[in-house]
């Protein structure tokens, strides 16, 4: 399978994410992206290196299974299903996402690429996914959806990391995955505290502090 097909599917999943109002579906997108991202290094023909195989397994297990598992558990506890009344509506989000994807393609075109990686869409896809994550992070009200946005933002960075995956030592790669895991874990704890303090995970309640 060509890596560009997987990358295109990742981009499509970005659009699904910004258009959905159901938190459950947003988590599903995270699962799909986690698996796609895990498979891309294999499609790039990097499967012969042992340390890359480890990254593939770690990405699929952590991004595609463990973190969504934590999110789903939190979702069950708080009994919310829909993201109601986001700061930026779904249609506008969708258009912004399309605009961001287009801009990423132009921006990526301006950066020089090493021979051999020129025809892979990794750089524009990384920038577009980063932008989508950021969009979800700032435009949604529920703490859980904001965490989903953060995860997608991290996925964008991971995509760029694949460009360097052969040269980078394990240390940096494991650092990325470990920090992602710990970050979501700590956020999970805070979400739980938000739930007990306010009886919901709507971050609208978190608007007491201002000047």
């Amino acid at each position, binding site marked *: 399978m060509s890596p560009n097909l997987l990358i295109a599917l990742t981009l499509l999943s970005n659009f699904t994410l910004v258009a959905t109002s159901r938190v459950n579906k947003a988590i599903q997108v995270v699962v799909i992206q986690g698996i796609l991202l895990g498979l891309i290094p294999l499609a790039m023909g990097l499967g012969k290196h042992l340390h890359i195989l480890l990254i593939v397994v770690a990405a699929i297990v952590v991004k595609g299974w463990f973190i969504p598992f934590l999110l789903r558990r939190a979702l069950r506890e708080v009994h919310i299903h829909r993201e109601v009344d986001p700061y930026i509506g779904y249609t506008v989000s969708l258009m912004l996402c399309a605009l961001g994807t287009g801009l990423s393609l132009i921006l990526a075109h*301006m*950066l*020089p690429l*090493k*021979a051999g990686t020129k025809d892979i869409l990794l750089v524009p896809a990384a920038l577009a996914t*980063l932008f989508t994550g*950021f969009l979800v*992070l700032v435009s949604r009200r529920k*703490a859980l959806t*904001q965490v989903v946005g*953060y995860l997608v*933002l*991290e996925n*964008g*960075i991971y995509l*760029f*990391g694949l*460009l*360097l995956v052969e*040269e*980078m*030592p394990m*240390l*940096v790669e494991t*650092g*990325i995955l*470990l*920090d992602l895991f*710990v*970050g979501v874990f*700590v*956020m999970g704890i*805070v979400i739980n*505290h*938000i739930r007990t*303090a*306010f009886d919901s995970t709507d*971050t609208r*309640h*978190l*608007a*007491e*502090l201002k*000047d």
Partner: protein
Amino acid sequence: MALLLILLPLVAALAAFLVPSSTMRARMLPVVGSLHLAVLMVALRHWGTLPVNAWLGLDALGAWVLLVISVLFCICAFYAPSYLALRADRDSRIFCVSLLSFLGLASLLAQARHPGIAWVAMETTTLVTAPLIYFNHNRRSLEATWKYLLIGSVGIALALLGTLFLAYAAHFGGVEEPLHYTRLMSNAELLSRPWLRAAFVLSLVGYGTKMGLAPLHTWKPDAYGETPGIVGALLAGGVTSCAFLALLRIYGIVVAAGEGRFAQELLVGFGVLSMAWAMVFMVRQMDFKRMLAYSSVEHMGILVFGIGIGGLAAKFALFHLAANALVKSVLFLSAGNIHRSYASKTLPHVTGAIRRTPVSGWLFLLGFLAITGLPPFAPFISEFNIAAGALTGGHALAGTAFLVLLAGIFIAMSETVLKVVFGTPSPQRVRTHYSDTVATTAPLIVALCLAGLLGVWFPKPMQTLLEHAVSTVDGKVHPRQVRLLPAPEAQHD
């Protein structure tokens, strides 16, 4: 030695987690802080002999920043037992573990010789300091923690992308792993320019979020306002210094590659914007802890402003790191004492602190005068020299803006501070059992004296250290390291 500096606090953190008695746990903090400072003093003698390909080790810049953090930690650690005794209602286990882990990770960051390790250390400091902000376990501190975590994580994610861009810039230019700072700096002219520039912008935005540069500072007033004063002191002087160091490392590479001009313009712009933004929000600020947070935004602006001007100003920007950390600890800790005494931190309720808590009131006032540039305190020396560097270095406009903003901030801050310290007591005030004791004021007095001493006397070995630190920021590799560098590799492409 390098490992000892990192492992000592981390092992102590584990021990603090296991110790059942909260008094014992609190007393561990000053012991570990002093030990860390002592080990660092020994390690400081070897900063010039760092091997080129070491993964961990102290160079002049790292040593200077870690010295600042270690002294600041000691001040806070000696204050902590009396503070935790006053807050006996709260469990101090997580608090002590987080404080000690922060010290260990800051040591890791200061000694990291690889951008990847530095990034991991920076990210982990975000995570270990989040529970500190949530210490009060109420709705307001929860909101502050959530904002801190989310904004901080996004910032740190962008810094990671910046680090990857830097790695790609090196890869593109034929410089392969291991990408130690020394290697990157001595091969800087090979790096791909567009990628390097993009890497710097992302690192500036990412680490700038952690430093709290405007307009990326939005978490800062909330976090500093809702945490105990001791955490505020450590965040304002410690975590921000860590982020500043991580940014300076990348800046050094950019300068070595000959792209300094581009980076300097960005830094001066962010510096002036941060100072102006802080000034606007300090005017009529009713909450004196939030006012201190905006003061921290201002001083982060001063730091990057000085680096952006370069030369004399860059040297005194590094000096200002120490001045800011010392005086901020005085301000945050005395503000914490006043907060404790009045059970409030907003203006109509807190007035006339000089009569109720005379020592803390005086310290708050003197801290305010010191941070706004009253001689002979250290911030005066650094602010004066940064302004002089800007005005004599051909940045007349930026230098003038700098001085005008400093004056404006002095006026804006003085209104709030004078009301808190001298104002007529309001009928709504509350009196708690708190009164100043030796334990809650002595560390502050020491910090203020250190800030005063640093203003009049700067010891020779520290001067040498600072000179070398500045040359690292300016993209120069230490002479002893140049000789040890392997011959330039064959280029391809």
